[in-house]
């Protein structure tokens, strides 16, 4: 057969190299550039951060001049001075995560389950969820500040309805900061939960109802457990950036009981030029979040999420 011969000949030349070795190298070619990038711009910088966190000031040097050392005392000093801000960051991030879950779950549920089958409506609702991404994060936060301002509609109305004491205000309060965090990271909660609920087979819900479960029971025993991967992903996507955020705290907060750790790190770096303290706080923040995330993911049994 002519084609066999023709192909066979051309093939013989190409096949000179053992195919197994080549196949083994393919993944290195694909992975190489990306992973090298991550090593150079993530692993090495984190190493630099660790090193910086142990620096000491150059004796007799200018402000902002440091030299390499192993001054572990930096951590003790930084924590002794700034532990309230660190704890507050986690507390605010936790509150924002819970609020985002409470607000975001029904949104995701309505889009995924109630709007199921109506593709156009579903698409438009999804667009509305991601719409805030398309305007500047900082402008939206400032808009939020204006909306909560002392003489704006919300506060006036709440004063009128006596929901808020006459001398109380919303701006520059912990409430303003947490609501800003919730607001800014809400889409990150909605999208993964939507993705999980969308994959859910509607026949499962019918089966639940068919087995005489009330809607509440069906939700508790079928819908909620099956949407768990989305909930875990969503809570992580809100908690992690919220814990490190300082835009909300600095735009919506005051400087007494709303200071978050991000503000401190930023100020240490840029205002005080206290690099070792800023670096050690960064390391503490990173380690604390990794430990929390690891424990949370392990507990919720969704390791494969990683």
């Amino acid at each position, binding site marked *: 057969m002519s084609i066999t011969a023709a192909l066979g000949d051309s093939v013989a030349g190409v096949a000179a190299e053992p195919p197994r070795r080549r196949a083994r190298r393919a993944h290195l070619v694909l*992975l190489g550039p990306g992973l090298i990038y991550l090593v150079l711009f993530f692993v090495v910088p984190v190493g*630099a951060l660790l090193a910086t966190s142990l620096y000491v000031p150059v004796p007799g040097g200018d402000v902002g001049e440091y030299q390499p050392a192993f001054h572990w005392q930096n951590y003790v000093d930084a924590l002794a001075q700034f532990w309230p801000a660190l704890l507050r960051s986690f507390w605010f991030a936790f509150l924002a995560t819970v609020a985002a879950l409470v607000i*975001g779950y029904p949104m995701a549920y309505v889009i995924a389950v109630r709007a199921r089958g109506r593709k156009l409506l579903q698409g438009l609702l999804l667009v509305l969820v991601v*719409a805030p991404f398309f305007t500047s994060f900082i402008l939206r936060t400032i808009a939020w500040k204006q*909306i909560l301002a002392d003489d704006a509609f919300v506060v006036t109305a709440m004063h009128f309805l006596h929901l808020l004491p006459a001398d109380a205000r919303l701006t520059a309060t912990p409430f303003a900061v947490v609501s800003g965090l919730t607001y800014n990271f809400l889409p990150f909660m909605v999208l993964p939960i939507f993705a999980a609920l969308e994959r859910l087979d509607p026949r499962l819900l019918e089966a639940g109802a068919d087995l005489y479960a009330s809607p509440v029971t069906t939700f508790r025993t079928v819908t909620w457990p099956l949407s768990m991967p989305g909930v875990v992903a969503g809570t992580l996507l809100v908690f992690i950036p919220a814990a490190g955020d300082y835009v909300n705290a600095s735009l919506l907060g005051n400087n007494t009981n709303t200071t978050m750790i991000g503000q401190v790190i930023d100020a240490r770096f840029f205002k005080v030029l206290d690099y070792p303290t800023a670096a050690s706080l960064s390391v503490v923040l990173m380690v604390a979040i990794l430990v929390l995330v690891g424990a949370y993911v392990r507990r919720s049994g969704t390791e494969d999420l990683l």
Partner: protein
Amino acid sequence: MTAVLDRAGESTAAPSPVRTPRRQRRRLGDVIVPVFAALAFVYLLVPVAYTVVFSFNDAGKTNLVWQGFTLDNWQNPCGAPQVCEAFANSLQVGVVSTLIATALGTLVAIALVRFRFRGRASANLLIFLPMSTPEVVLGAALLAQFLTLRVPLGFGTVVAAHVLFCISFVVVTVKARVASLDPALEEAAADLYASPWQAFWRVTFPLLIPGIAAAALLAFSLSFDDFIVTNFTSGSYTTFPKFVYVSATRGIPPQANVISSFMFVLALAIVVLVQVLGYARSKKLRGR
């Protein structure tokens, strides 16, 4: 299956005292959940609306109080100093970092799904870590390194930083798409005499385009809107979010709202267009 069949026969026989209250409760839930969700949408969109409305404010320098309607800001979007320069910088940073991050991330995603190799778990961890590190730490780490190496801060350092936090998101997005591809398609290509290179470009890549496009859009929006990492790595270089943040203390010019609203409308139009086209196409497909 049997349960479903049984149920059909039983619906008339089901005891009515049990059925009626349950019906009512379900109707209540039918109303409450959508209403709550609608309020949540309002919460989500009010600040956006506020930003758009105040782009028409006849504000002069500080855009805090409503002064009256004007089109001046839209007719002269570069009217305020530095606004357009910052905007152009953000576009440049966004495009360059998106291109780099999408290319690198796509390759990594393909390797992670298609190959089983030693160190795969470590590679996955390396992808995951930047996503679970707060931006302030990423910024601080990069700044620590740039300071140590005495790299001058500017466009280059900002792009390097943006690529870093975009890669992981690209990998995750594209990975999902690769995983949904039938591996038999690549085998079929090989079976039909396509070399691995040809199989990639003729089969795998075209099928990955939707995932890659989604990843690129995500990367661009992350980069375009980033403030914290940019603030650490930019030195005196100004991007649009940084410009807005810095001018917040003095008062933000309404031109910033104009640019932001313009981007919003543009992005919305693109997304709606894609949605409607996709809807129309799926209709047409089903129709045949």
